[in-house]
């Protein structure tokens, strides 16, 4: 959200001395607006003007990072309320909580499981972002012990959930090089927590009692000069969290309300793992930057949530594509049917799912249509007989099957003749929608 040249000009000294390079303050303002100059070039600018300009030019929601090295997690810096307005940029970080009241064996077991929560589906890699360490016992040794185990078992990021600065300090010290989030500053402890976070240069959670109180607390902390913050309105019931996170996002983006211009964190409250995953789903889409789970940790529980995160943070302007090549579905043989489709991932995966559902193994040859669906690609001249013939040729499918029959989507039946002529393959017109594949292929190819 940049400023216009005139808005910047109002803040400049108006000496027109030219020391910044351009001859006038106005010309300099224009350069600043277009990003061709930096404020430092003017030696006469006042401190207030500098701060005003910097804060006005800052993004509505600050970008905060956890972690270091290969495991940096960037959160915040969102610009819209609805993904269709542009996109959501920084996928919500998902953390799983472990308390220091668990016995050693259970602690080891849980941390090991969390450290393995990596998945592969539809050619993409998913994983959780780390572990939230909760000081439950009040015992400093236990808490440090948990942190030591976690540091060894979990390669990713950490949230330190502890509101007692003395208890948190050794753990912060231990994990400092991995830049954990320290959660949280409250009314009672904020000065010490800010000190601790500042000393170790780590992000700090701020937990209010409600939105008004949160704004007050954040303001106090930023006046002290610390801005690496992640904010929490303190609510825990699904409906109220949704309302609070919506207000925070609205105020940050539509009003540039500074105290709410930070990433957010949400904690689930549901008593069992499956209902908790559904609750967390709300926060991932609307509008938590970090979500901490307390019950769920099994693979079957986490995969649906990570899948949702990937879906909702997909850029609507950039369709996901699959690599154009031959894909095998099931135990293919040299007489298995051959399908062609486009490389728009949604199209491809619908076809793949139906081929699989048909229980008749098959090959799918994917044509590069730059991530467009069959009809769009056809209309745009990207799914032509020439393109399909070339894809067949390049894919090497002829070496894998002994027949020469290719099934094309029903929507492009008109290309049959031309394709047959160009490729030498017999063209079979398949169903228009992927859902028709099982019935079609079963009637045509006996298993």
């Amino acid at each position, binding site marked *: 959200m940049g400023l216009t040249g005139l808005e910047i000009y109002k803040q400049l000294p108006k000496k027109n001395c030219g020391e910044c390079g351009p001859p006038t303050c106005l010309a300099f303002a224009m350069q600043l607006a277009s990003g061709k100059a930096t404020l430092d070039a003017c030696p006469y600018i006042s401190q207030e003007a500098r701060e005003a300009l910097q804060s006005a030019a800052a993004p509505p929601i600050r970008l905060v990072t956890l972690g270091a090295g290969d495991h940096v997690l960037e959160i915040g810096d969102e610009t819209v309320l609805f993904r269709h307005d542009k996109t959501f940029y920084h996928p919500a970080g998902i953390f799983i909580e472990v308390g220091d009241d668990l016995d050693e064996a259970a602690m080891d077991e849980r941390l090991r499981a969390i450290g393995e929560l990596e*998945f592969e589906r539809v050619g993409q890699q998913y994983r959780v972002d780390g572990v939230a360490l909760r000081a439950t016992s009040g015992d400093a040794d236990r808490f440090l012990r948990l942190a030591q185990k976690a540091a060894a078992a979990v390669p990713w990021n950490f949230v330190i959930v502890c509101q007692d600065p003395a208890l948190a300090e050794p753990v912060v010290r231990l994990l400092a090089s991995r830049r954990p989030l320290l959660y949280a500053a409250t009314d009672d402890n904020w000065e010490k927590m800010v000190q601790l976070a500042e000393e170790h240069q780590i992000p700090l959670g701020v937990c209010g009692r409600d939105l008004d109180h949160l704004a007050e607390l954040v303001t106090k902390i930023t006046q002290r000069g610390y801005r690496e913050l992640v904010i929490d309105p303190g609510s825990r019931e699904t409906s109220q969290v949704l309302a609070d996170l919506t207000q925070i996002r609205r105020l940050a983006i539509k009003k540039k309300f500074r105290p709410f211009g930070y990433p957010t964190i949400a904690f689930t409250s549901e008593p069992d793992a499956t209902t908790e995953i559904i609750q967390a789903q709300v926060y991932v889409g609307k509008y938590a930057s970090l979500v901490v789970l307390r019950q769920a940790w099994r693979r*079957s529980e986490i995969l649906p949530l990570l899948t949702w995160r990937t879906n909702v943070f997909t850029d609507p302007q950039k369709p996901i594509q699959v690599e154009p090549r031959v894909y095998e579905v099931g135990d293919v043989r040299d007489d298995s049917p051959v399908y062609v489709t486009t490389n728009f991932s*949604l199209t491809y995966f619908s076809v793949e799912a139906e081929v699989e559902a048909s229980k008749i193994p098959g090959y799918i040859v994917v044509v590069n249509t730059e991530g467009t669906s069959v009809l769009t690609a056809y209309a745009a001249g990207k799914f032509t007989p020439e393109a399909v013939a070339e894809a067949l040729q390049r894919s090497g499918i002829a070496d894998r099957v002994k027949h020469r029959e290719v099934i094309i989507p029903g929507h492009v039946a008109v290309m049959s003749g031309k394709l047959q002529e160009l490729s030498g393959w017999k063209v079979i017109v398949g169903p228009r929608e992927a859902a028709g594949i099982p019935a079609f292929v079963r009637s045509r190819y006996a298993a």
Partner: protein
Amino acid sequence: MAVERIMERYTSRVREVTLGATAEQGGTRSHTITVGGDSTLPFLHFEGEVPHRPVLALEVNDVPPAWHQLLLEHYRDVLDDPGAWAAKAVRQFGADLVCLRLVGADPDGENRSPEECAQVVRRVLEAVKVPLIVIGCGDADKDNEVMPAVAEAGAGENLLLGIATQENYKTLTAACMVHKHNIIAQSPIDINICKQLNILISEMNMPLDRIVIDPTLGALGYGIEYTYSIMERIRLGALGGDSMLAMPVIVNVGYEAWRAKEANVPESEFPRWGDQPTRAVLWEAMTGAHGLQAGAHIVILRNPDALRLLRRHIEQLMVPNRA
């Protein structure tokens, strides 16, 4: 610090649609169900009304379906009897309403006659007293024979009938008008077609408060985000005064979720995806939950365990919130 909240002021709201009819209203239902009426985005009670909670339907088939074992185990004793199946869905599993799918009409399957299908509808209407949704087999020509018979058999019951598409809406619309039912207007993940179809149906003089939008919600992991965004735009359109988008929304979640590989493959084949029963329930429930966040009013499910999860979730979303 008193923070001034942002309250959106919308000019309009989603239309209300009422399903079912009691004896006084000419039907035999014990009660009616009204959906829609929202004057804000989903569950933002602090700035508008969400007068009716979203409702959950369980799917019942007229012939035993080729569903996964994990689903069939809930229905094994009732698969041959749609009436008993519907009764179980309502009484044991707590469905708000039943969605009867007339798969048996499929010309590639049992190819049942319109009269046979109408008979099944009568049977289900006798077995349960909740409002009923009836969906054809999906073969356009056959549905055009079957659905008028269904509409006649259910005359007075104020059913919700589907599925009308841009290519095939006239017969179903006419049947709904003659026998005073509601219609499901389905568009393929496309807000323009959604609107266009509502216009076409209303041009046949179908009252707007008897149309329900089916935006074709994909399953979690299979393009759900496309429909999610279209549903958000539909809701914003409705609130902004676009009368042809201001219909309640229905999502066919059970059917879509069970097309996903993640619901169907056992842990033995995909050990890193975890245990299948939990994964399958969550795949369906999560797909439904995304639908709710995007503005769905009626969710059609298959797994009673998914229904149980969503029931609790809806209760929590309906708790009033403050700005």
